[in-house]
């Protein structure tokens, strides 16, 4: 039986890990929840964000500039991806969407490998995040602590843009009946493009923020794609609050299980997901029939 301080430490780590998972899942759930597209290139876009961060930091040394330039770059990637490829697939079956985004992810990953090689690239922790903080008995990396606040602010910002302005409404209405929304004088195509690009930027920014923690290499996105899917299945496919709560739940499951035996952390996570799929197939916040 783990000691109480260790259990508390792990519970706290679950929260920190959970916010990271929520951020990683947010881009996936935005695109799925509004456009109804299952984006299997999400992991590759996450990785692309991390590489953008690496390149900018290698040239300028500035973390903030990394985020800003990286986000702009991801916006361009998102726009191009939507215009060239994704817009042709809004009305196609999910299987087609999965295949085309999966194919796009392979192209992105191998293009990055061709340019940078398969080695891990180093992204340093920003100066303000270096070191370890002490909270009572808990020692915790400062950067991860600060990320909790940064991510909370980012998630709130995304929520306000997508769900407290008319844009989310337009997109959801457009998915139901694009012609009718068009007749109302609204440019649906532009709204679709904007939401897709925002989803891509969210995926990229999570890669940028994760870059100082993990090794940046071409295949890093694969594991995160799987975890993001688990999170949104738990939270409810396409539900934005679901992704946040699902992320926190997943983080806690992994961490608390690890306090007992880390070998079972993944098993536990998938077991909970399976159980949820049996008892509540639409996930915690999902509504039946949506997506």
């Amino acid at each position: 039986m783990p000691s109480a301080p260790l259990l508390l430490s792990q519970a706290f780590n679950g929260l920190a890990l959970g916010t990271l998972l929520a951020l990683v899942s947010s881009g996936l759930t935005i695109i799925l929840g509004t456009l109804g597209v299952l984006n299997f290139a999400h992991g590759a876009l996450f990785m692309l964000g991390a590489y953008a961060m690496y390149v900018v930091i290698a040239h300028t040394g500035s973390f903030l500039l990394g985020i800003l330039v990286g986000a702009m770059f991801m916006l361009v990637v998102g726009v191009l991806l939507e215009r060239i490829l994704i817009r042709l697939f809004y009305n196609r079956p999910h299987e087609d969407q999965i295949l085309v985004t999966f194919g796009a992810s392979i192209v992105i990953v191998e293009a990055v490998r061709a340019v940078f090689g398969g080695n891990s690239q180093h992204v340093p922790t920003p100066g303000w995040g270096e070191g370890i903080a002490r909270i009572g008995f808990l020692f915790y990396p400062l950067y991860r602590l600060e990320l909790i606040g940064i991510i909370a602010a980012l998630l709130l910002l995304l929520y306000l843009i997508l769900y407290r302005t008319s844009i989310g409404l337009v997109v959801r209405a457009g998915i139901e009946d694009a012609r009718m929304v068009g007749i109302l004088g609204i440019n649906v195509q532009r709204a679709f493009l904007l939401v897709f690009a925002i989803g891509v930027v969210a995926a990229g920014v999570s890669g940028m923020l994760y870059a100082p923690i993990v090794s940046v290499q071409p295949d890093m996105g694969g594991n995160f794609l799987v975890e993001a899917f688990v999170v949104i299945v738990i939270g409810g496919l396409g539900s934005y609050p679901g992704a946040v709560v699902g992320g926190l739940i997943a983080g806690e499951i992994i961490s608390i299980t690890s306090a007992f035996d880390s070998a079972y952390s993944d098993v536990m996570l998938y077991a909970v997901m399976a159980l949820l799929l049996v008892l509540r197939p639409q996930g915690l916040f999902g509504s039946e029939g949506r997506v």
Partner: protein
Amino acid sequence: MDDGSGRTALDRRQLLQLGLGAAGGLTLAGLGAPEAFAAKPLGTWPAGTKGKSVFVGVTTPLTGAYSADGKDHELGYELAFAEINAGGKNAHAWGLKGKGVLGKHVRYGIADSELKPNVGVQAQTQFIQREKAIMITGCVSSATAVALEELAQREHVLNMVGASGANETTGKDCQRYGFRSQPSAYMACKALGPIVGKHYGRNKKVAYLVPDYNYGHSVHQAFAEFTKPYGWTEASKQVVPLSASDYSSALLNIANSDADIFVNIEFAAAAVNSTKQAEQFGVLKKMKLVVPNISSFQARDLGAKLMEGVYGTLDWWWILEDKFPLSKNFVTAFEAKNHYRPSWGAHIGYLQTYVWALAVERAGTFYPPAVIKALEASKAKPFETTLGKVWYRAEDHQMVRPVPVVLGKAPGAMKNKDDYFDLVDLVPGEDVINPPGLMGCKLGPAV
């Protein structure tokens, strides 16, 4: 075939079999092979050796988490094939005669195993069926290594196995057709254990980070065994899934243990990932890092600062060029071609290709059982290699070779950009190899 006279004439196929059998038998007899193998067609022999060239199938993970190691591995093979086919100075220094192997040009194909055993097996199966590969080789994962050994045994095609560090590869999953050059986890840890035991002193507590597959468990078990005589005990063991990217929960447990030593068994990108995160969790300040099997690019990707003072072993490191002329040749040729000093993934490809070529020339034939015999008999006549004199043990096909134990250098002490390690010791293979039979190896039949 019935010629109408009531006698059954030999058909072309039977005639060919007889002829080849006789020819194979004569070759073996002429070379004084200890026992006459029934030289019927076997695997891809003789079909794969009929033309002016033979084919070798290479699989290596060019995508996936081990792709950097896999690329290095590939470049090692390419250099060896180029040198052997050219028959120049380097090939002659190894003792090969003329161009190619037994005068035959060596063609090769390289396939991406994607770090997946089934993909590796599929690729090598195609090489065997389509190209009549006479030898298969390459991988950077023990899971793939074991799967390919099974394939080699089933298809009767020689397999120069690895990179692979798990004990099982020449232990319970060993095969007559598989030969491994890399030290097993047992050998690496038996070489490393006493060195860290003496350096750090008695009665240390150890925290382990263990990737959840055969390699990880092999290394954990072996390291615990060989540090036990120094009173080292386990304070924490964190087994993590292979797919892990975030090690925070496991590292929190380790940080909260009262361990003095942190043994990180993770490999390649996972090793870089977990070590980076261990530093952020303060583990590397509290504990001394030991890496039983240092990945090819671990030091380069983590930076010398994090690797300073880290003890570990490697299959080979370029500084061995000072000890072995063939290593010097290898480093010089590889660097000229690829613009960096080779890592040990490349070395395994390079070494195994040459040893195979030497064994075939010793056997005087590509006939697999004869080549196997030549490799199994190498104790009496060791191969002179990049590691000095080495030989394969007949009981389990593990190469008996020295194990380099290294220590991470301070950044200021590095003489060039690849100069991450000092050689602490080159432990003789005979001193650290497991007793035969300990790992449950039962080699299958050759024919």
